[in-house]
């Protein structure tokens, strides 16, 4: 049986705390904006928003260093922000603009920031789990002390690649922490309707690794839990499966009427809002004053306004002629097919 991680309660240095809060607020602001732009049909494509789950990405990312790596999911905006992503580059990407992280080729589901160690989101549920596992293998072989955080949802844990990857990581004792964001549903299907365990972390025992459950609404709990697992991984003691219990506020996508869940359930989780909880904690422990807290929010709001302006008004779409760029490294499309670049 998986271990339930006890609550931390203790706060850290003010600057660090302010950064965590800012990241969570940034994610929320970003996702609220995305939802609004989708509703207004300004944004095209599909976006899966992370609102409600902020503490997971932010807490987890606070537990790793600059050289470490992550692999992200279709619900990847939060991971990107928490990994240091810049809102304007992200929103430009969602808009399919040339200035976006992926020059507009990827959009919401493929947001990546490889140079910052974000090996990318994927549109294939559970598709990033083998990739993250392979990245961890590289970390192990390169012996530079890197670890990988591999994010995925409860639904992803029912896919075959979850099983194959965790088995591989368990056998090879890879430096990776699997972070299951259990938000109770995979699209419309509740965990209890499609999954044989209630706690995804209970599956860890099948892979010779520890399973730990943490309250995903408490950013410091997540940070502490992941930090412990990261330490273990870095010490060569192998992988951990961390399950963070959380909730997505919005529908799966913008067209989802959420018939599969109750207003009561939604209300219960809204009351456990990760930003509210953390703000309260910081105020209670007197780490920051209400004024300081508001200032963080104001800063975020200003950045968001700038990001929107940048993405919508200041950024060009890719030129149609650039369609063939970067399909292959070192080759371009020619009249008769691919041609090697000099």
């Amino acid at each position, binding site marked *: 049986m998986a271990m339930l991680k006890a609550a931390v309660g203790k706060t850290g240095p003010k600057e660090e705390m302010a950064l965590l809060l800012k990241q969570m607020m940034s994610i929320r602001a970003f996702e609220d904006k995305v939802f609004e732009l989708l509703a207004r049909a300004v944004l095209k*494509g599909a976006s899966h928003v992370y609102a409600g789950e902020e503490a997971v990405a932010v807490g987890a990312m606070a537990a790793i260093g600059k050289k470490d790596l992550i692999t992200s999911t279709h619900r990847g905006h939060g991971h990107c922000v928490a990994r240091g992503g810049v809102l304007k580059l992200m929103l430009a990407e969602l808009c399919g603009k040339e200035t976006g992280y992926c020059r507009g080729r990827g959009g*919401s*589901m493929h947001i990546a920031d490889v140079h910052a160690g974000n090996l990318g989101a*994927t549109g294939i549920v559970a598709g990033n789990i083998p990739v993250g596992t392979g990245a961890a293998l590289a970390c192990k072989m390169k012996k530079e002390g890197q670890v990988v955080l591999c994010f995925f949802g409860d639904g992803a844990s029912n896919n075959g690649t979850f099983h194959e990857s965790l088995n591989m990581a368990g056998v090879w004792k890879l430096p990776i922490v699997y972070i299951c964001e259990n938000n109770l549903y995979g699209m419309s299907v509740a965990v209890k309707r499609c999954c044989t365990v209630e706690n995804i972390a209970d599956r860890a025992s099948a892979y010779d690794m520890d399973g730990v459950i943490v309250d995903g609404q408490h950013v410091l709990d997540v940070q502490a839990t992941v930090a412990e697992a990261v330490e273990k991984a870095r010490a060569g003691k192998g992988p951990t499966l961390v399950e963070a219990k959380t909730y997505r506020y919005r529908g799966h996508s913008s067209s989802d009427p959420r018939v599969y869940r109750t207003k009561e359930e939604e209300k219960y989780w809204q009351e456990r809002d990760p930003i509210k909880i953390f703000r309260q904690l910081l105020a209670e422990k007197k780490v920051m004053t209400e004024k300081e807290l508001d200032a963080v929010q104001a800063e975020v709001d200003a950045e968001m306004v700038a990001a929107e302006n940048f993405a919508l008004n200041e950024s060009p779409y*890719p030129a*149609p002629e650039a369609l063939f760029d970067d399909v292959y490294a070192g080759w371009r499309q020619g009249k008769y097919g691919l041609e090697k670049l000099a």
Partner: protein
Amino acid sequence: MSVKFYREAIRDAIAEEMRRDPRVFVMGEDVAVYGGAYSATKGLLEEFGEERIRDTAISEAAIAGAAVGAAMAGMRPVAEIMYFDFMTIAMDQFVNQGGKNRYMFGGKTTVPMVLRTEGGAGRCIAAQHSQSLEAWFCHAPGVFVVMPSTPYDAKGLLKTCIRDDNPVLFVEHKMLYGEKGEVPDEEYTIPLGQAAVRRTGKDVTIIGYSRMALRCEEAAKKLAEQGIDAEVIDLRCLQPLDTKCILESVKKTGRVVLTSEAPQNANFVCEIAQRITEHAFDYLDAPVVRVCAADTPVPMSPTLEDECIPTTAKIIAAAKVVLGKA
């Protein structure tokens, strides 16, 4: 006749076949409570209950494989893979088990199943949600590939597929669910392997399927305004393919434009071109021209997606090339 959405035609086909045959059932991700990502199974849960309309976990290989097993054991599953792109996960189960078991077992079993999925671009949802992978399945002996472009065809063909004893990949198109068309009120089915001539013409044959068939028609209309009389063939089924219909048209027009929303390299339309070469070479007045998607992953950005996928304008331009008028 009633006017129905494509998605309703799909739903009606399944519902009618489920009423007719207790062996027919539905399974897939979000097909029940949610009614399908594109609402094509909406309402079925209410009528048929959860025993026959089954939400599954995100387990594409198990969905396809369970359909194979259920079919061999006497049921007639209609399973859904939410996006064509996810067939990459179910290839072994569908192609290696479903498509081959009958042959490998000396004809001693049948695998009467339909795998419904939905492909194509148009929604700016990028490289893993916009693919058209039909060529792979045409190259996998033992399975059928059906790709209707209208509500009428969608309903009539899906009913036939559910009754057929072979594993069928039934590919809908995400941009067609919201299209409307006339559908008979009375029972009907459409045989597999019969193309539809959407427009007769004598100057050039334009061939397409799924969403591209609509663009072919559009192109033909505009060409007509310019005095070019194009014949338009909607393939409807890629396997079995209506080669005869194609050849007859080619023999008449001597000029061919092939269209597809899948990448150009090794595109299925090359098979059509080769069949024309093999059976009607001497009737050709010009080299066959193809209009396919670019050989790139489908980009998210609207400007690039539009550049990547064949437009009506490109089909028109190709027709002029093949007519020597470009």
